[in-house]
């Protein structure tokens, strides 16, 4: 009885699934294609490698680069983007001294309360404070940016596929939509309908190719790096800020891989021992041609 019911139910679902398949196949045949080709699909580029020191299983932080990246964030990105999960005290990990951290924190105004009147006010930041948002709230952020709210950058490199390389590629990826081509195919010729709406900017590394953010790094030397640092080209600044945001997204990234190696080493050793122990235990009853030896 169960088998009879089972067969009927099984046939029902199979027929319905194949019916849906047939309908889908009909659509594909009448359309003559599996799915509609879109500019977003054909002209989207995968991120280019930012070649950061923290990449890979043996990665290390390049503290000088992180400090340069922080400088780019502070002088360029922080005008619009918050960094709300990072506290000033965290910056000590970039190699800043206690006094330097205090000075950096004091350079930011954070929300506070007037000790005399209890009214909301601002005060200079302390190392325990978190990076303040450039806007009082989301409505203000949208109003100031043509309704596109600048996302928080704390986790940006983890919140996008291949995030570190993505940030680097996006910042250096603005192109002229009229001349942009891949393998000699121009986006404007392949998709005449494709347009970059007002207040958006063509960038093939962005998911739908049109990003609301205007190119933030536009000229070499936009940020003045300290003596002895690489020349602040757009490419270098993009790389540096990508490195910095890799750190903000996962400050424990390098520690993680550094802990990982000894753990794997220990486990490998323990597993080999377990393998040998298992063989020793089982040797007594290993199948042999003749009678089994007593254990």
């Amino acid at each position, binding site marked *: 009885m169960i088998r009879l019911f089972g067969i009927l139910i099984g046939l029902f*679902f199979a027929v319905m699934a194949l019916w849906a398949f047939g309908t889908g196949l009909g659509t594909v045949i009448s359309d003559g294609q599996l799915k509609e080709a879109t500019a977003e699909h054909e002209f989207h580029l995968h991120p280019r490698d930012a070649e950061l020191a923290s990449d890979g*299983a043996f990665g290390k932080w390049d503290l000088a680069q992180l400090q340069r990246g922080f400088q780019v964030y502070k002088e360029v990105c922080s005008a619009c983007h918050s960094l709300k999960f990072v506290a000033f005290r965290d910056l000590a990990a970039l190699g800043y001294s206690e006094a330097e951290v205090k000075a950096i924190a004091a350079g930011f105004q954070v929300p506070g309360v007037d000790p005399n009147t209890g009214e909301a006010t601002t005060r200079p930041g302390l190392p325990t404070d978190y990076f303040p948002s450039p806007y009082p709230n989301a409505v203000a952020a949208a109003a100031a940016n043509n309704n596109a709210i600048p996302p*928080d950058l704390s986790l940006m490199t983890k919140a996008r596929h291949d995030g570190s390389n993505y940030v680097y590629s996006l910042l250096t990826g603005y192109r002229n939509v009229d001349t942009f081509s891949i393998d000699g195919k121009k986006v404007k010729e392949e998709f005449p309908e494709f347009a970059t709406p007002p207040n958006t900017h063509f960038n093939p590394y962005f998911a739908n190719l049109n990003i609301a953010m205007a190119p933030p790094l536009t000229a070499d030397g936009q940020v003045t790096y300290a003596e002895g640092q690489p020349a602040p080209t757009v490419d270098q600044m993009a790389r540096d800020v990508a490195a910095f945001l890799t750190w903000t997204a996962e400050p*424990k990234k390098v520690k*993680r891989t550094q802990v990982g190696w000894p753990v794997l080493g220990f486990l490998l050793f323990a*597993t080999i021992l377990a393998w040998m122990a298992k063989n020793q235990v089982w040797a007594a009853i290993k199948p042999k041609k003749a009678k089994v030896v007593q254990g």
Partner: protein
Amino acid sequence: MSFPWAQQYQPVNPFMRWMDEKLPLPRLVYNAIGGGYPVPRNLNYMWNFGVLAGFCLVLQIVTGIVLAMHYASNATVAFASTEHIMRDVNWGWMLRYAHANGASAFFAVIYLHIFRGFFYSSYKAPREMVWLLGVTIFLLMMATGFMGYVLPWGQMSFWGAKVITGLFGAIPVVGEPIQIWLLGGYAPDNAALNRFFSLHYLLPFVIAGAVILHIWALHLTGSSNPTGVEVKGESDTIPFHPYYTAKDGFGLGVFLLIYCAVLFFGPNMFGHPDNYIEANPLSTPAHIVPEWYFWPFYAILRAFTVDLHIPFTSIVIIEAKLLGVLAMFSAILLWFFLPWLDKGPVRSGHYRPLFRKFFWFGLIPAMLVLFWCGGAPAEEPYVMLSQIATAYYFLHFLVVLPIVSMIERPEPLPYSITEAVLGEDKDAVLGENAEPVGV
């Protein structure tokens, strides 16, 4: 416990003798996973996954309890408290990665455990109850895993919760009230997050209880084995300890190597980048996908794109969405009926030539296709592929398996487990003169 020749627990130490009289807990352990549990001598490495699953459950409970000490289940701060764990809690990053990837490891191990059961027909009599409890554990795990993924309150958490609870909305008439009741509101919010956290903390202990029943039921019949031939005598078995504790110890080492490689070198490879964006009810992600371990069933859900209607009319009997929901739940619930769908007397796939072909060239490819399509966007060719695989999935369990078990002519079985291991004893008359193997 299960066989008369099982070794007896004989405490020597006076304290242990006293303990054995007052509360024979050591005896229980000895009989469950010690020398007192005789196990078939021919188990292969596919029999390691039960112990590994138990290890994963303990790992999840231990890491989860510590995470709960730092997590705040309030929609306004849940995401921030998760980041607090990642940044400020001592070794919090490791705990959270261990827990998130522990869920993946748990499901990976359980899927291998279940497919071991499919191939060797472990569900067949006399182990039906072991199987039923196992499927129950799997369902509890799915509920726990789903609710755990909601807790960080990222974009996938929120939209996953919305999609999954929305499934109940497909039920005619009462669907919408049920969905609102489940969520405690019209959309996932604080009420939903709080109850999910409460249940996410509760269910693992329910699982632990079900695991105890699962093992209890197993010990009444004893473990199955790759030949599917039941234990006939003492020479067929060896004590669980030291033989299988040693073998499981090695298996655990290999498991931990893979698990730690992911944990320390690619902890986000099974996650979705969107879940590092805080939940935003106003912004729908481009592709809402659940965690990888739900992909096969998610593919089945999405495979039903056509309403059941009377052809050439617009009279709808069952809407496509409801069909998908019914199919998805049926896809798992039908496992409960396997012991009665597959009535073939032979258990092991090694001796079932026809069953084996359908298993390797039907079920496994269909599952892999469903897995692949479930994680892909809902567009062609993935939808069409998942429709074919879905059709096969239901045909396999509900049509092919019952029919195969009726018409199949199994290959000759070895006389006993001992014979399968040591080869036929030509000098001996079958079944006689066979000396028990000393252990």
